[in-house]
């Protein structure tokens, strides 16, 4: 049915149907964010020998995040007098919209995907860069010293780590010969790219954590030195949208890592009877768990270490990985 829809001429009817389907995905993502935050607090709690939320919604605290969101919705909205009002208002929208847009191209299974565009990977990278603009806009509009410091740090960090992030996937593109995420998954039939591209995977993973502004690279919002960084003047639901953008990226990045390096919906050998969606969910959950694990085990890096690590270590390694991959491909062709 969806196949026919995709082949019919694009019009308002298609727009409406796609819109409804996208709303369903949005609700799923919001559900994920709700429980990812709970999972984060629970996992961190147990790793720190305490229980985490266990009051609201039964002993697992299942309604804790829902209660938090409702509380945020009821909070007064304060815009400082010195702030640049129009920019202050649109900054969370600029930060959030690309976070949701990147989900359009990610293939969850071979059947379940929204937009199957030829340059899916490039689209993800290009659109995710726009969030930096939203963060800097918010920081500048706040007219607050801490916010501006945090925003500049965020911009410097995100552009510095975007380079190794992009470079490390060139190896994957070389092996699969396509930027289409479906083709990239199909190319992993003979072994996931985590096996063929171990260096690329490690560089990508580190750069991804830095792009997500998560521990150990959470300098833009380092609580103990910048109070909260770029969103210090934001309150209530505007603040919630910065946080939501962060967690939607968390979802998107975990899904992208699954697609690029862990074979997406492809099963392990001899376990093909388990459906693709389950495989995707399993790999996705593993990536999410590792990211949560990072948060409770690593100390924050210093600002100078952060920049030098990105440019002096990750970038040369990522470049070397490209040519190593290309060279090995040539050698394999010869023999």
């Amino acid at each position: 049915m969806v196949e026919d829809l995709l082949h019919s001429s694009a019009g308002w009817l298609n727009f409406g149907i796609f819109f409804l389907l996208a709303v369903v995905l949005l609700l799923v993502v919001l559900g994920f964010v709700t429980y990812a935050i709970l999972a984060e607090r629970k996992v961190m709690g147990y790793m720190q020998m305490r229980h985490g939320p266990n009051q609201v919604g039964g002993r697992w605290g299942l309604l804790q995040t829902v209660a938090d969101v409702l509380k945020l919705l009821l909070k007064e909205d304060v815009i400082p007098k010195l702030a640049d009002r129009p920019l202050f208002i649109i900054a969370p929208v600029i930060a959030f919209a690309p976070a949701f847009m990147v989900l359009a191209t990610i293939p969850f299974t071979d059947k379940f995907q929204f937009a199957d565009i030829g340059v899916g990977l490039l689209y993800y990278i290009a659109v995710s860069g726009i969030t930096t603009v939203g963060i800097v806009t918010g920081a500048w509009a706040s007219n607050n010293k801490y916010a501006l410091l945090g925003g500049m740090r965020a911009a410097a960090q995100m552009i510095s780590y975007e380079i190794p992030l992009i470079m490390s996937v060139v190896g994957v593109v070389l092996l699969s010969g396509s930027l289409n995420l479906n083709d990239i998954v199909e190319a992993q039939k003979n072994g996931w790219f985590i096996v063929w591209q171990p260096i690329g995977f490690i560089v990508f993973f580190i750069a991804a954590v830095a792009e997500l502004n998560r521990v150990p690279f959470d300098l833009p919002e380092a609580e103990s030195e910048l109070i909260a960084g770029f969103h210090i003047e934001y309150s209530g639901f505007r603040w919630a949208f910065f946080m939501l953008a962060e967690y939607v990226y968390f979802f998107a990045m975990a899904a992208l890592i699954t697609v690029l390096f862990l074979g997406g919906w492809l099963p392990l050998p001899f376990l093909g009877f388990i459906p693709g969606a389950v495989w995707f969910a399993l790999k996705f959950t593993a990536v999410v768990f590792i990211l949560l694990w990072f948060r409770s085990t690593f100390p924050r890096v210093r600002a100078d270490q952060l920049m030098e690590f990105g440019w002096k270590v990750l970038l040369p390694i990522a470049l070397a990985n490209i040519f190593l991959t290309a060279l090995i491909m040539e050698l394999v062709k010869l023999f």
Partner: protein
Amino acid sequence: MEMLNLYQNNYLIVFVFLCLGILLPVVALFFGKLLRPYKPYESKYTTYESGIVPFHDSRVQFNVRYYIFALMFVIFDVETVFLYPWAVAYEKLGIFALIEMLIFVFMLVIGLIYAWKKKVLKWT
């Protein structure tokens, strides 16, 4: 025609996602407006600065290092613009393209080494 439709529909989906990404904050903030209290008073609207009265404008001159990092970013980002099509077509291009790309990247790496030696990458 068939391909054109497919193409248009896929980008229509991207557009739908853009609309939804903008709509969600707008709708949520609109409903928030109906629910949240509004009790303004003067001191609530001052800029936060660790409890003291803020002084000077906060949009001060910034360390030039941020700008240099931005320049480096542009250089290497443009490099990736060339790397991606090369990587996609590499299967058909073969060893000659590899050597060409090596020369191209080598020239940029010289730039990186220069920046490194000039202590641009040092953050102090």
